[in-house]
């Protein structure tokens, strides 16, 4: 169905993919894995000709899709064969309500009205969108938007569906909805699906084969992931335990886990220290018009405590963080960092008390080089020159003259973190920090955050990251706290928030813990 014949793709003399020789068969769900920058997106975009027709660069070799050579067929001429859903579905929307968006590719293909009408109805049912048909796209939740984006690629009845990070921005529940829909396409319609995803623990179990980049090795999922630098916890656990064949789903792993479970002692109880409280909120509410985003949240966070805020998309996590930081809206309630309310401080003084790294950290950067950003951070906070640079060096190695836009997601996050930490805040708030980070980058982030003296509160959907990093978990639903306690307790008791290792081994949370115990 898709054949790459000795393909090499170069951007500005720098090869992104080299000598890729791969064939993906019809009706297969193929998972593309690799570290950030390994060329996953480039590979996906080469399938429908966006690389090199749209992105520029040189492609040597040949890409054949359903018998058509992408060298002679630009993406628009492949629209009837390949459906493509990019990383940010919202930015790719053309129409403004669900139905028109679904019909858009069919209009471009010039299908007759009756066919369009029928296919839109079918797609609405297939993806469970029927109740949303007239809704404006902007009012949908993340999971719904992702399903609309997939649906709008499907209406053209392509034989191949390419998905770039379809669940990265979604909460675990919504991600499952999307993946269930994708699986149905593969099973019921025999569609060929190619997926790249950082959250391997969500997708690996559904895949038929996996492709490891940049080596371009394709094979059975377990075998490929066992060799990969990025792998879901099940596979890493299998490496530690020496299981063979390597399981990719929790279910397979559990069958092999009996002996390991017997060998493991009870995990040591976490020492409960009495921490000096730094952040204290009392009955915080946030209202936007008629919508109550946060309803009476009272929390107390101690110095050095690592709190993870979890909950669905739209459960009020971001609103709470912004309200605590002081520049966001707060309808009622009190927030105290030490003895001061950050809302009453001037922005300059505020950032030395509370620092917030927003969902899009790049919004904080506006200068041309890393060095300028660091110098600016020093002047803003009145620290001696070089403070920010030293902090940054502790996180990652980045040359001084790089443009912040050219950094990888992980490096950019590190830069923003360094900029915010220059003010030595008492409280550090992070909104979805692990988006776009692969596993090694997440480990590095967890290491850095663990070394901080400030109280850290982070909002995230990433259960594996929470298991590795957080000491305490607070679950929000509809703006209220529904669970609050030590990470182990909260996370293991919930089927949605439980990390893979705990699903297999009960009280254990991470592979590293298991490895240490053995």
């Amino acid at each position, binding site marked *: 169905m898709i054949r790459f014949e000795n393909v090499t793709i170069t951007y500005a003399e720098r090869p992104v993919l080299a000598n890729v020789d791969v064939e993906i068969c019809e009706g297969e769900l193929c998972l593309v894995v690799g570290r950030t920058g390994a060329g996953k997106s480039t590979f996906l975009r080469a399938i429908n000709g966006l690389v090199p027709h749209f992105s520029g660069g040189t492609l040597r070799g040949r890409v054949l899709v359903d018998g058509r050579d992408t060298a002679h067929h630009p993406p628009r001429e492949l629209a009837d064969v390949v459906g493509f859903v990019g990383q940010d579905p919202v930015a790719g929307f053309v129409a403004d309500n669900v139905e028109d968006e679904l019909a858009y590719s069919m209009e471009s293909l010039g299908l007759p009205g009756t066919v369009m009408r029928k296919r839109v109805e079918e797609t609405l049912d297939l993806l469970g969108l029927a109740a949303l048909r007239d809704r404006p796209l902007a009012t949908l939740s993340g999971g719904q938007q992702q399903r609309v984006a997939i649906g709008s690629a499907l209406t053209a009845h392509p034989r191949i569906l390419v998905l770039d990070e379809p669940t990265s921005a979604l909460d675990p529940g919504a991600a499952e909805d999307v993946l269930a829909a994708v699986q149905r396409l593969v099973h019921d319609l025999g569609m060929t699906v190619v997926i790249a995803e950082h959250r391997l623990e969500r997708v690996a179990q559904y895949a038929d084969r996996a492709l490891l980049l940049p080596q371009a090795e394709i094979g059975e999922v377990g075998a490929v992931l066992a060799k990969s630098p990025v792998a879901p916890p099940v596979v890493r656990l299998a490496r530690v335990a020496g299981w063979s064949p390597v399981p990719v789903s929790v279910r397979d792993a559990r069958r092999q886990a009996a002996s390991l479970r017997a060998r493991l002692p009870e995990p040591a109880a976490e020492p409960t220290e009495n921490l000096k409280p730094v952040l204290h909120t009392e009955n915080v509410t946030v209202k936007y018009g008629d919508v109550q985003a946060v309803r009476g949240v009272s929390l107390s966070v101690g110095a050095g405590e690592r709190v993870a805020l979890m909950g669905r998309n739209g459960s009020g996590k971001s609103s709470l963080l912004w309200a605590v930081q002081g520049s966001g809206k707060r309808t009622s309630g009190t927030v105290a960092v030490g003895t001061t309310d950050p809302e009453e401080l001037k*922005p300059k003084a505020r950032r030395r008390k509370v620092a917030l790294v*927003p969902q899009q950290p790049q919004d904080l950067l506006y200068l041309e080089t890393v060095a300028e950003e660091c110098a600016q951070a020093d002047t803003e906070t009145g620290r001696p020159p070089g403070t920010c640079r030293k902090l940054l060096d502790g996180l990652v190695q980045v040359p001084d003259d790089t443009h912040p836009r050219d950094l990888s997601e992980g490096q950019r996050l590190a830069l923003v973190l360094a900029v915010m930490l220059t003010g030595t805040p008492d409280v550090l708030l992070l909104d979805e920090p692990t988006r776009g980070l692969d596993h090694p980058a997440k480990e590095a982030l967890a290491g850095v955050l663990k070394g901080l003296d400030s109280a850290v509160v982070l909002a995230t959907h990433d259960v594996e990251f929470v298991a590795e990093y957080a000491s305490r978990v607070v679950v929000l639903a509809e703006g209220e706290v529904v669970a609050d306690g030590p990470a182990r307790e909260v996370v293991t008791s919930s089927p949605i928030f439980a990390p893979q290792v705990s699903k297999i081994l009960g009280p254990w949370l991470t592979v590293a813990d298991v490895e240490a115990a053995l």
Partner: protein
Amino acid sequence: MRLHSGAWWLWALGLATAAGRTTNPLVLGLVLAVAGLVVVTCRANTPWSGTYGVFLKFGLMVIALRVLLHVFLGGTAGPTTLFTLPQVPLPTWARGIRIGGPVTAEGLVFALYQGLLLATILSCVGAANALANPKRLLRSLPAALYEVSVAVVVALTVAPQLVASARSVRKARQLRGDTARGARAIRTMLVPVLEDALDRSLVLAASMDARGYGRTAGISTRDRLLTGTLVLAGLFGFCIGTYGLLADVCVGWPLLAIGGVLAVAGLRVGARRVPRTRYRPDRWTFRAVGVACSGMIAAAALVFSGDPALSPSTVPLQAPELPVVPALAVLLALLPVVIVREA
């Protein structure tokens, strides 16, 4: 079943034309009331249906501005001086321009009428906006103009996106404790906002490309050229016709007619060669035609009515009278209330 958006726009433009033919505050008030009533009863629950209020506020602002301009710059004079502002002496070459000076009741009333006229026209446009999505109207363009109409729709979403991205950058800037104002603030805002806008448009362009925008499958180059030529010729004819109409009525009508025929023919032939279709296009039903006609009749009645009460005298000041036939014609524009309620 929603009505053709073109029907609502014709109806509203008809009302606006009617308003444009009179300065009688009673008739203008009637037009305002009719438009308001129809908006309140007929609008669907859509994100853009709330825009009517914005247009009304904008109208009030226009009235205030018109009156203020009159007070400071003068204009129509009359015998009844209400008060006198100190006048700024201007050199002789600026004769005819006046700043300050006496303010008369006649002039004020005249300014008020004119402000009201502009506000009424604005409210008619606002009504059309609230009743029919302007983007939806673009979807009814001929198939030959498909690509252009999609481009315009996309362009229309840029402004709200820029506002949203500027807002998030400003919020982020506060996190850094950066409270810069003036030129520096513009620089610190502009770079991320523009970068964001560029990124977004690239993503959108890639997505549209991947979904078949600008596809030429199955059409030969010769046919594509022919289509392009025909469409361009048609539009060109239309432009010349419009120009002729504006320049001179006698030459204008035939030129416009020829241009129109050329345009329609070009678009028709062009459309046959463009492999595009529309999903659930708006249709001209009887009800839609009825709505459009009710507005157009109101316009025609006022354009061809010679009733002197349409422009009440301000020098000397007189209480405006209600001209019966034009008033009835404006009331006819209430027809959509009945038509839509039956649907």
